[in-house]
């Protein structure tokens, strides 16, 4: 692990593009990794058990904690009455009179909302005591669905708002009215995406220790960022940033976006430690995760496309209604706003209108789930494009190709302000056809249909953005307010990396990322090893964040596929800087110019005079132990480099609501062949292929494993996953037994292809990757199933398309003996 490599000569790029076995796996396969619940806790740590509302909507009349507090070992039983003395509401991204606390105050607004916290010497004691807390609830009328929430006279989730609509806005780009007037045809679709989640194996956890001496609250938590939300927590806890330390361990047991929503619990557990003065540990149970963590929004979308006689996409109109649960917590209304930049996907559509309405209901609040809001967008958009092809009599791939942004158009600015970096979508589609064997698959389908089987084929494409430019959330703020001189616009999405060579020559890289299985340590080690001419094993990479010790920013963390573009760029830039520093120091010691220095196999020497050389170990030693030497004195030769990488295009939102929400924009095309079981409506995936444009990958083994997971998750979502509740807002599927999760018995092996077009915005051309299948997967499956059910003229309008839905909507009529002609249109 030194700059002096033990191995033979290595030159730059050796490890770039290599499926190098992951360094993380050495501890993960041997039980030596340390996840949050495995960390040692401070002396005197108490354990928190959260008592949650059993009602979706109820007035909290009285909380009797007397019996609970008497249980030996109980330190405190805390409710809003106590905790509001040390806590303010968590700030929201949208302007609203709603006050969002991590614990119910006078009312519980969803089943699972925290109502009281028992703090005790052990978790078992806390659980015993929690059963003795008596809460007097007065149940109120519940609105658990969008339709009910919007109905006239509906009960209100928040009286202060006056209705259940918390935000409403129309964004217009180009001349949509004209586009629709000129249209030869207008085609529309409706899709409902039900609330769902992608639950990780490891649940949420927080350990909070308030230290009176330093007046610092330290929290160990499996929070993934963005650290804007750590700022939000500090604000709620009335702490200045220098008094709030967040430590995220280097091992996190999956997230898929969910662990962003650890932040309300950082506020809650932090408040408990501040109030009681003892360290407090909380580890979420699986059932708590289902009722109290987070979910994706429920969305109703109505999309309309204006088409020319030739099939050109003239304009797109969208009416979006999102149910975001009981509180519009940050980063909502991101489900919609995050996608505004790339709303038109890979298509050239210059006239666009998006009307968004955000609705609160008595259900679990939402936050980003893998590919934040883009399954919600890609599914209806691709269904619409497929329908346009059918109606105009075009081949769906040809229609897409006709409307694609072309290679010569890049960098391409979308109608809504997105700046796409690079791409060749036509070439990617050709690759997809090849790896999927489209002609073969079509022939196979015809063959199977002749046997009377319900088989079909679907193709969907999409844009895979990487990085989150905070500017998109400013679209939630009224333009008049953004015009004021006092308004502080937001922008940026930078990633940092610190590279240090220690006095003994060991190389250490510190990232500001919180990986949850993405192999950042390996990728960073491959990059640094390539630049500095050592082996990946010679580079120690530290991930996770410690806000007191890491160069972090409000964008820090691991979300929005940001490592592939900006993270890699930050590490690579830091490594290049380090190489330069080493060359400069060597040039002084050897008395030659820095340009003349070459580094190979742990030795720096002069190109022109190869006998002038110094081992990197001696060089590093000299810099540390003899900086006063004649050659080095007066110069800055510290062997520590911090590089923060940002992309220039990540500017603030404009007053006409244009914004570039991401740094790079990859492309994905997915093809799927399916069979629907006539008797049960269940769907089998016969074949699945995706082509990704990741701009090229540093470690293709890691990219592929992530995409294998994404594709399987996509099918889990599309065919099975939804959070179900009854009319009283009671969640019904809150275990891994009731909520569908795939097992080793029903996975499929996707076929992958690469159609990399290097990004001009990143030094190695890389983009983000691995969320794409989560959006195109469900869209391709929907189109394939509609194709399989062509004789029923099936219009699939609800996600997930479960066997039950498919059977009852389409196939059951067949069972009743209706003729094929009379079952042309489902209900």
């Amino acid at each position, binding site marked *: 692990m030194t700059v002096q490599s033990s191995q033979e000569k290595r030159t730059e790029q050796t490890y770039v593009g290599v499926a190098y076995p992951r360094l*993380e*796996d050495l501890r993960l*396969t041997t039980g030596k990794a340390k996840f949050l619940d495995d960390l040692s806790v401070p002396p005197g740590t108490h354990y928190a058990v959260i008592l949650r509302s059993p009602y979706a909507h109820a007035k909290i009349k009285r909380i009797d904690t007397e019996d609970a507090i008497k249980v030996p070992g109980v330190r405190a039983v805390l409710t809003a009455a106590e905790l509001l003395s040390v806590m303010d509401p968590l700030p929201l991204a949208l302007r609203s009179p709603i006050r969002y606390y991590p614990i119910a105050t006078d009312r519980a607004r969803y089943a699972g909302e925290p109502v009281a916290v028992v703090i005790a010497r052990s978790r078992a004691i806390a659980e015993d005591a929690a059963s003795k807390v008596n809460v007097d609830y007065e149940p109120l009328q519940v609105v658990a669905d969008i339709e009910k929430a919007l109905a006239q006279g509906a009960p209100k989730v928040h009286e202060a708002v006056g209705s259940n609509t918390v935000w409403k806005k129309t964004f217009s780009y180009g001349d949509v009215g004209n586009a629709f007037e000129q249209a030869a045809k207008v085609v529309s679709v409706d899709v409902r995406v039900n609330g769902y989640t992608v639950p990780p194996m490891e649940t949420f956890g927080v350990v909070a220790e308030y230290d009176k001496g330093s007046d610092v609250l330290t929290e160990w938590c499996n929070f993934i960022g963005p650290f804007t939300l750590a700022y939000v927590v500090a604000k709620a806890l009335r702490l200045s940033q220098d008094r709030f330390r967040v430590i995220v361990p280097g091992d996190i047991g999956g997230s*898929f976006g969910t662990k962003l929503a650890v932040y309300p619990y950082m506020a809650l557990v932090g408040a408990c430690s501040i109030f009681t003065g003892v360290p407090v540990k909380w580890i979420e149970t699986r059932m708590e995760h289902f009722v109290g963590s987070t979910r994706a929004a429920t969305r109703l979308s109505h999309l309309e496309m204006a088409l020319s006689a030739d099939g050109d996409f003239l304009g797109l109109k969208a009416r979006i209604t999102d149910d975001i649960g009981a509180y519009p917590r940050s980063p909502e209304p991101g489900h919609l706003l995050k996608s505004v930049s790339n709303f038109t996907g890979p298509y050239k559509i210059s006239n666009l209108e998006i009307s968004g309405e955000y609705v609160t209901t008595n259900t679990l609040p939402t936050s980003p789930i893998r590919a934040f809001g883009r399954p919600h967008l890609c599914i209806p958009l691709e269904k619409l494009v497929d329908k346009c092809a059918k109606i105009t009599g075009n081949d769906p791939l040809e229609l897409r190709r006709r409307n694609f942004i072309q290679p010569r158009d890049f960098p391409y600015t979308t109608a809504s302000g997105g700046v796409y970096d690079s791409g060749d979508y036509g070439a990617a589609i050709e690759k997809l056809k090849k790896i999927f064997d489209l002609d073969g698959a079509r022939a196979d389908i015809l063959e199977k249909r002749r046997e009377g089987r319900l088989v079909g084929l679907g193709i969907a494409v999409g844009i895979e953005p990487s990085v989150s430019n905070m500017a998109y959330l400013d679209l939630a703020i009224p333009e008049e307010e953004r015009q004021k001189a006092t308004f502080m616009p937001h922008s940026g999405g930078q990633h940092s990396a610190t590279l240090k060579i220690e006095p003994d020559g060991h190389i250490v890289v510190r990232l500001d990322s919180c990986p949850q299985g993405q192999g950042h340590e390996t990728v960073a080690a491959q990059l640094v090893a390539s630049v500095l001419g050592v082996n990946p094993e010679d580079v120690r990479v530290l991930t996770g964040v410690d806000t007191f010790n890491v160069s972090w920013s409000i964008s820090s963390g691991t979300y929005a596929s940001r490592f592939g573009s900006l993270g890699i760029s930050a590490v690579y830039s830091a490594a290049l800087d380090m190489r330069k520093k080493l060359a400069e120091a060597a040039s002084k010691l050897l008395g030659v110019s820095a340009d003349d220095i070459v580094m190979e196999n742990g030795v720096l020497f002069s190109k022109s005079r190869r006998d002038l050389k110094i081992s990197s170990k001696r060089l590093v030693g000299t810099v540390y132990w003899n900086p006063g030497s004649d050659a080095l004195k007066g110069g800055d030769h510290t062997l520590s480099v911090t590089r923060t990488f940002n992309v220039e295009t990540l500017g603030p939102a404009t007053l006409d609501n244009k914004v570039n929400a991401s740094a790079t924009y990859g492309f994905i095309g997915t093809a799927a062949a399916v069979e629907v079981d006539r008797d049960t409506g269940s769907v089998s995936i016969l074949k699945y292929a995706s082509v990704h444009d990741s701009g090229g990958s540093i470690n293709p*083994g890691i990219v592929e*494993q992530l995409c294998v*997971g994404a594709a399987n998750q996509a099918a889990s979502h599309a065919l099975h996953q939804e959070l179900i509740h009854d009319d009283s807002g009671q969640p019904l599927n809150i*275990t891994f037994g009731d909520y569908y999760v795939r097992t*080793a018995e029903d996975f499929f092996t996707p076929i992958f292809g690469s159609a990399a077009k290097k990004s001009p915005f990143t030094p190695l051309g890389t983009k983000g990757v691995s969320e794409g299948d989560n959006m195109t997967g469900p869209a391709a499956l929907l189109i394939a199933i509609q194709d399989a059910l062509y004789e029923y003229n099936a219009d699939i309008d609800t996600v997930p398309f479960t066997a039950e839905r498919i059977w009852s909507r389409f196939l059951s009529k067949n069972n009743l003996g209706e003729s094929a002609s009379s079952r042309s249109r489902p209900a």
Partner: protein
Amino acid sequence: MNRSINIKINGKSYSDVVEDRLLLVNYIRDVAGLTGTHMGCDTGHCGACTIVMNGEAVKSCLILAVQAEGASVETVEGMASETGLHPLQVSFRKNFAVQCGFCTAGILMSALALLRNNPEPNSEDISKALTGNICRCEGYPNIVKAIEEASLVMKAAKDLGREPRGKENEKEG
């Protein structure tokens, strides 16, 4: 009520007095300090807590510590020997079968029990043996392949009369 128990974990004897209600997984993690075994649910569905007890794969969240009295337990920490990593561990790394790694210990334990009972499983046998283990990264294709490959490595080593061990710092793919 408290009871005294004696358990052997990875060949080492543990004697303690524990509460009746203490789950075996909590004993392994909190008392024995072996945190490689994880808890991913509280209903026995996820299998992150799978261990090998008296030769069988068992979910340690579904039994009490006191029920393991006199048992011989194996956890992920006991897989590697002084001579190196277990072929399953090597194969999981080689085949990119680990993402977040939270489910990995439980899956390795199920695979270990499988290969002892059926040293030459086909992919269907492997899938069946893993029904009780959830991987939420959904990396199943790589996991099944890794187990299949490990079984072949173990068989080849056995045929040659060698101990099938990888190096602790296995570098090559």
